[in-house]
């Protein structure tokens, strides 16, 4: 049962990822990315990482996708088809990517992973305690750095997206 479910999720992931990088319509490619992200959340659920799956669904599928859709609607004509790279270049890139994939897979399949048995389930309180732990192996410093990073990114995004008034930068552009 879980095997079948995993294979369905893997098929969804790979198929929609391919569709997302091949599609010539902007909005469709964003929606295909949404399906990929939901399938990844499904894999997290299957691995018993419920908190991570919830984060994936809220931040990626809820936040980032909405942000990208907004920007597509702001800067793009819906009907316009995107131009794509030349066929020779596409072919060369596909060849290089499959070579890299072959290298990755040969390394993965020759390495002998020491898989240990099923561990205990993860509770959210354990994750929170680990994030705020300042003892050995705790994550308090990266946690604080990430919070400062998010604040800086928020302020920076507001300042950059606001831009200057059109009358002011008319001289600079032309």
């Amino acid at each position, binding site marked *: 049962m879980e095997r079948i479910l995993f294979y369905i999720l893997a098929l969804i992931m*790979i198929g929609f990822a391919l569709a997302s990088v091949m599609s010539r319509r*902007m909005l469709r490619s964003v929606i295909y990315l949404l399906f990929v992200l939901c399938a990844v959340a499904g894999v997290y659920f299957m*691995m018993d*990482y419920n908190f991570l799956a919830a984060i994936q669904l809220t931040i990626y599928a809820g936040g980032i996708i909405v*942000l990208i859709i907004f920007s597509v609607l702001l800067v793009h004509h819906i009907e316009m088809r995107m131009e794509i790279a030349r066929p020779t270049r596409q072919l060369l890139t596909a060849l290089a990517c499959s070579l890299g*994939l072959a290298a990755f897979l040969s390394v993965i399949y020759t390495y002998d992973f020491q*898989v*240990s048995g099923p561990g205990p389930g993860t509770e959210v309180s354990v994750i929170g305690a680990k994030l705020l732990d300042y003892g050995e192996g705790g994550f308090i410093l990266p946690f604080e750095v990430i919070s400062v990073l*998010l604040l800086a990114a928020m302020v920076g995004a507001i300042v950059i997206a606001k*831009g200057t008034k059109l009358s002011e930068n008319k001289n600079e552009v032309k």
Partner: protein
Amino acid sequence: MIEGISIYELLTVTSILFFIGIYGFITRKNLISVLISVELILNAGAVNFVVINKYLYPDVLQGMIFSIFIIAVAAAETALAISIIINLYRKISSVEVRDVETMKY
């Protein structure tokens, strides 16, 4: 760990996802499409962290916390990239990669 699924199959799926992202990153000519490909690459990396945590060291949480950090950094990066794209569109009315040269010098 998932019943009946070995670590090799999971790592194969994430490797394929990663290289699809790289393919899109190279062939696409539009800034927003490049951003979408970067999201695919970051997701493949995050899943790899989680898989190795769950299969090889199930009693610690480091891999999972790293992927939480990856998701946070990805959110910050996307917000900044989109604000830059919107600002560029205001100045040059285009989001194609080859038209963007205002920030080069």
